[in-house]
C-alpha cells in the first residue's frame, strides 16, 4: 500500500518517463540521419582501436534492438523493459535499505 502511494505521488515524473520512451524511435531515427557517433568512437578510430571492440554479453535486446524486429518498435519495447527492470531493482534496493 505504502509503495503504491509512493509511486502515485510520482505520477507526473512517471508520465514524463513514458513520453521519453514514446519519443525514443524518433531520436533513434534522427541519430541515424546525422550519423550519430560518440567522442569515444572517434578516439578509438583515430588510434585504430575500433576493430578491438566486442561484446562478451550482447544481452537479450542487443543495442536496444530486438533481433529481427522493427528497430523503432524495438526502441519502445527496450525502453519499457529497461525502465521496469531499473525501477524494480531500485525498489528492491530501497526496501533493503529501509529502516526496519
Amino acid at each position: 500500500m505504502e509503495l503504491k502511494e509512493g509511486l502515485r505521488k510520482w505520477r507526473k515524473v512517471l508520465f514524463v518517463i513514458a513520453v521519453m520512451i514514446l519519443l525514443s524511435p524518433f531520436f533513434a531515427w534522427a541519430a541515424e540521419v546525422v550519423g550519430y557517433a560518440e567522442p569515444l568512437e572517434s578516439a578509438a578510430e583515430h588510434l585504430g582501436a575500433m576493430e578491438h571492440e566486442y561484446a562478451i554479453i550482447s544481452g537479450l535486446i542487443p543495442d536496444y534492438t530486438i533481433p529481427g524486429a522493427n528497430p523503432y518498435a524495438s526502441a519502445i519495447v527496450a525502453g519499457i523493459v529497461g525502465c521496469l527492470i531499473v525501477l524494480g531493482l531500485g525498489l528492491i534496493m530501497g526496501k533493503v535499505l529501509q529502516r526496519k
Partner: protein
Amino acid sequence: MHIPDGFLDLWVCAVMYIISAAVIGYSAKKLKGKLEAPQVPLIGIVGAGIFAAQMLNWPIPGGTSAHFVGGAIAGILLGPYAGCLSMVSVLTIQCLVFGDGGITALGANIFNMAIVDVFVGYGIFKALRRYNQDVSLFLAGWIGIWLGAIAAGVEIGVSSIFAYGLMTTVPVMGIWHGALGIIEGIITMLAVRYVLIKQPDFVPLPKEVRG
C-alpha cells in the same frame, strides 16, 4: 561514453572494478537502515527516468554527439550515496540486457558515470547553490560529465589497444564532452527544477546520507 569490451587493458578493468566496488559498498553501508517509507521508491524512479533519458541520442549535425548521462541529477536529488546506487543499477542493466558497455569495462563505466559524475555533480551543487541555484545545477551537470569523460579518456589512454595514446584520448574526450556537456548542464537544471516544482512534497533523503 559507455566503454565496450576490448578497449581496456586487464589491469585497468581490475583496478576500476576494485575502486567501484569499494565505493558501492561504502554507499550501501552509509544508507543501510536510513530510508523512510516515502523514500523507498526514489532510487528506482530516478533510475528509470535516467534510463529513459539515456536512450535519446542527441541528433547533432555532423554526427559527433552524446546522450544525457544524468549522474549529477541522481546525486542532487538522492544525495551522492543513493544517487550512485541508482546509476549503478542503470549501467548494470544497460550492460547485461542491452549490451551497452562491456562487462569487463563495467567497473570503469560505473566509476565514470555513477561515481565521478554523481559525486562531482553533487559537490558542485552543494558548494554553489547558496549563490545561485540555477547556475549551480547547470555547472553540476556540465562539469560532472566533463570530468567523467576525462576519466574515461585516461582509462582508455593507459590501455595498449589505444597505443597508450593518453595525449590523444584525454583531449578528444575532454574537448568534445566539455562542449557537449553544456547540453547536459541545461537538462540537469531543467530536470531538477521540474522535480522540485512538480513534487513540492518531494521528501529528500535524510541529511546525514545526503552528505
